[in-house]
């Protein structure tokens, strides 16, 4: 094992500097790749959104048709942006919390390059008409072996750090990180084996598909996102989490309930009623972990909201944590058959999915990168103005997106349930909401470009040098702990 432990006697700043330095190349590689895929996925998102209200837009080329552009957007955001930002954050967090140097640095950098190759190859395959049409698993089967292999390296690095840890106590974030690194490879391999291995066919394939797709958010992005919030929120504020007991209760109840929820995507479908009911029960039980997280985050922030003006990291992770609460309660209610009758097959579902992956997870990852990157490079972010453009572009964009499609989706659902309304009239009535989606996408794109400029300047060392190698801007806050 090359997870060299830093000396017990070393001052805290010194071991932090050592740990951060060991993370530099792999974590920067994952972050830079993630931001590239974020920009690429944003372009495809805008194309897909415009095609929803202007179907003739760029329709001359078959590789730019909606049926190809949309899955490439989804897969580049899930496997490119989200997963790569998540892995970078996961590695840094695990090293920090275990207080050991990051092992397997070269295999991780090589793994990152191969991951990029996989996302690029899978995207080209979809664009050239070789996608699988299995939602969230559209990359051709062969690429899954590559991703599975890289997951093994990430899992090995995480377990090596844990086994060499210098801290006896396992902080709550580490439980969530463990969940992510153990659950997601299992999910990914099982879903690929069952669906592409031809064991799951017909309605069983649909059930497997949604078990997987729902759990990409629940057992991969959610644990990484919550691990990040549970570390950065108290760390930035300088005050411990409100109730540590609740945080652990939240983890174990999430572990117990989330895995069951996927079949709520198939309410009304030709599956055994008990199978869908199990999914609904699992979804409603998620009120328990979500409430623990919501109470904990709010009570930890209480009395300290003024710090949102001080810390870019805090802005993004607080917005992300609030979105988590909203999207989770919304998801539990949405799984109920009476609600689902209206919202199923409408834009409401798209708004909900984006509030989860973007409003929650992406916002938390933005916050994490704002915190981690200066500690890896020893440089400050180059422009407060660009940070503000990034925040307001993405926050307002997400708000417009969610409000527009949620409201439009409800109206769409009610109209579709009314046999007196012609289907094409329903489509026409959704037009203003689809335009609001494109407008929201432009706002988010502006934010992403600002972020990409900042990240480029950060990793080309254009920012002002920080006084201490391991210390990003630190503000002494008298009375910060209350």
């Amino acid at each position, binding site marked *: 094992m090359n997870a060299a432990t830093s000396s017990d006697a070393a001052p805290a700043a010194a071991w932090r500097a050592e740990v951060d330095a060991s993370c530099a190349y792999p974590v920067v590689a994952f972050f830079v790749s993630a931001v590239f895929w974020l920009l690429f996925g944003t372009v495809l998102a805008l194309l897909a959104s415009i095609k929803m209200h202007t179907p003739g837009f760029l329709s001359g080329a078959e590789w730019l048709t909606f049926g190809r552009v949309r899955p490439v957007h989804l897969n580049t955001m899930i496997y490119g942006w989200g997963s790569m930002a998540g892995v970078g954050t996961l590695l840094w967090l695990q090293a920090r919390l275990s207080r050991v140097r990051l092992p397997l640095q070269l295999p991780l950098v090589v793994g990152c390059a191969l991951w990029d190759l996989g996302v690029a190859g899978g995207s080209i395959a979809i664009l050239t008409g070789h996608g699988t049409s299995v939602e969230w698993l559209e990359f051709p089967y062969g690429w899954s072996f590559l991703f599975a292999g890289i997951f093994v390296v990430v899992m090995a690095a995480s377990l090596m750090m844990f086994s060499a840890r210098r801290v006896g106590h396992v*902080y*709550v974030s580490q439980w969530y990180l463990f969940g992510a690194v153990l659950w997601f490879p299992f999910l990914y391999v099982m879903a690929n084996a069952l669906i592409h291995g031809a064991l799951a066919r017909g309605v069983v394939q649909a059930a497997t598909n949604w078990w997987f797709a729902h759990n990409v958010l629940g057992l991969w992005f959610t644990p990484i996102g919550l691990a990040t919030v549970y570390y950065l929120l108290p760390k930035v504020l300088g005050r*411990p989490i409100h109730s540590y007991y609740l945080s652990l209760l939240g983890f174990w109840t999430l572990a117990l309930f989330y895995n069951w929820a996927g079949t709520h995507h198939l309410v009304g479908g030709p599956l055994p009623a008990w199978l869908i009911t199990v999914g609904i029960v699992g979804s409603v039980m998620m009120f328990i972990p979500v409430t623990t997280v919501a109470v904990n985050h709010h009570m930890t922030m209480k009395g300290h909201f003024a*710090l949102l003006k*001080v810390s870019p990291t805090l802005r993004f992770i607080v917005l992300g944590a609030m979105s988590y609460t909203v999207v989770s309660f919304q998801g539990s209610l949405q799984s109920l058959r009476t609600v689902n009758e209206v919202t199923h097959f409408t834009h409401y579902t798209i708004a909900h999915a984006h509030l989860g992956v973007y409003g929650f997870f992406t916002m938390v990852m933005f916050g994490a990168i704002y915190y981690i990157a200066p500690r890896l490079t020893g440089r400050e972010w180059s*422009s407060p103005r660009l940070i503000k453009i990034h925040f307001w572009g993405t926050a307002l964009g997400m708000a417009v997106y969610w409000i527009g499609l949620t409201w439009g989706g409800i109206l769409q659902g009610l109209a579709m349930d009314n046999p007196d309304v012609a289907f094409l009239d329903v489509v026409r009535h959704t037009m203003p909401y689809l335009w609001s989606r494109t407008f929201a996408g432009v706002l988010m794109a502006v934010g992403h470009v600002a972020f990409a400029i900042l990240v480029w300047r950060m990793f080309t060392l254009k*920012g*002002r040098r920080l006084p201490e190698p391991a210390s990003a801007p630190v503000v002494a806050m008298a009375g910060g702990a209350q």
Partner: protein
Amino acid sequence: MNPIYAVVWGVVALFGVTAVYGLVWAIRSGQMRDFGRGALSIFDDEEPVGMVTDAFPGGQTADGETGDRS
């Protein structure tokens, strides 16, 4: 029988055993005791409770103000 069934059930068993083992280990090793100390484990002498550890570049606030925010 298709060999993939063996892989599927093998991984299901491994996953379940790992989760149960994790919970049992956590209880036996005292991870579920002394929650107050657990919450403080991310702080130390150089980044103690009471220290805010993130700020806009130059220590500015979002409004462009600088200086002591204690």
